[in-house]
């Protein structure tokens, strides 16, 4: 399809979104990621039955933690789409990039620069 999506999006492949842990999301922010989003299969279509539901819960927990510590919970999102929806994948990437751009960079990066 040769679809384009923003080059700022870095893909971390996992066998199933159920593998994603809050710790992975938190560490990403600690290392300076501006946003994190999980792209899982459609709800009800998980090959492992409930992996994408688990991911959604963990994403929600990460949102709460980030909100508590003063980072916008909006920086973490969960999306569901099927493997044949390439155009939607590219659209989500653009949407998320736009959303993060509006929120601005991860304040941690600025804080680290200041401390250095």
């Amino acid at each position, binding site marked *: 399809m040769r679809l384009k999506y923003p080059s700022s999006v870095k893909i971390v492949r996992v066998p199933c979104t159920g593998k994603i842990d*809050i710790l992975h999301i938190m560490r990403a*922010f600690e290392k300076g990621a501006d946003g994190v989003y999980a792209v899982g299969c459609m709800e009800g279509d998980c090959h492992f039955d409930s992996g994408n539901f688990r991911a959604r819960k963990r994403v929600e927990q990460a949102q709460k933690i980030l909100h*508590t510590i003063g980072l916008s919970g909006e920086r973490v999102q969960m999306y569901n789409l099927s493997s044949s929806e390439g155009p939607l994948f590219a659209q989500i990437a653009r949407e998320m990039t736009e959303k993060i751009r509006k929120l601005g960079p991860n304040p941690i990066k600025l804080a680290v620069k200041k401390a250095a």
Partner: protein
Amino acid sequence: MIVADKKPIEEIIEEVKDHDKILILGCNECVTVCEAGGKKEVGVLASALRIYFLNQGKEMKIDERTLERQCDQEYLDEIRDVADDYDAILSLACGVGVQFTAEQYFSRPVYPGVNTCFLGATEERGLWTERCQACGQCVLASTGGICPISRCAKRILNGPCGGSSNGKCEISKELTCAWHLIVERLKSLDRLDDYEKLFPIKDWSTDRAGGPRKVVREDVQL
């Protein structure tokens, strides 16, 4: 196991905000199983605190460590070499672990990172319920394996009381009356005769009423 619940991050921030170097100390036992203070929770909390304090412009060294147990001296000794590097220890163990760590590292403040709740079981993922109050004199042999001390709101030994209706306790319609469960269990074991036997007045001195308790076992002492 000992069941604990996470403390809100805001409360933990208040506890440690005046320190510059802290060690978050997890425990591999009960609190790992109830997902409140194991290695993973230590990691998530450490990340959250690092992000928070960096964001506040405060440079704080926050390290992570998880011990096999915090209620045993031999495991607590593992941090003997590094404890001096920190201003404070934030323990994610149960109240026992927090206190024992504080006793072993007397010159360092030790803060609790979890709320210790009760002795209970994992009914399903994310649901833990109380099963034992460590009263020191187990009556389970006579009650069909269901504990009236921990599972009856009034801890009565000759129940049910008048507040039991349709098998539910008067304090909550969600809570099954412990004595209803006991009678049902004894019935299925064909041991209803046991229910006819009256419990004598319980000696509560082995419970908390007798003050802090200890077990001395000369047979295993070295």
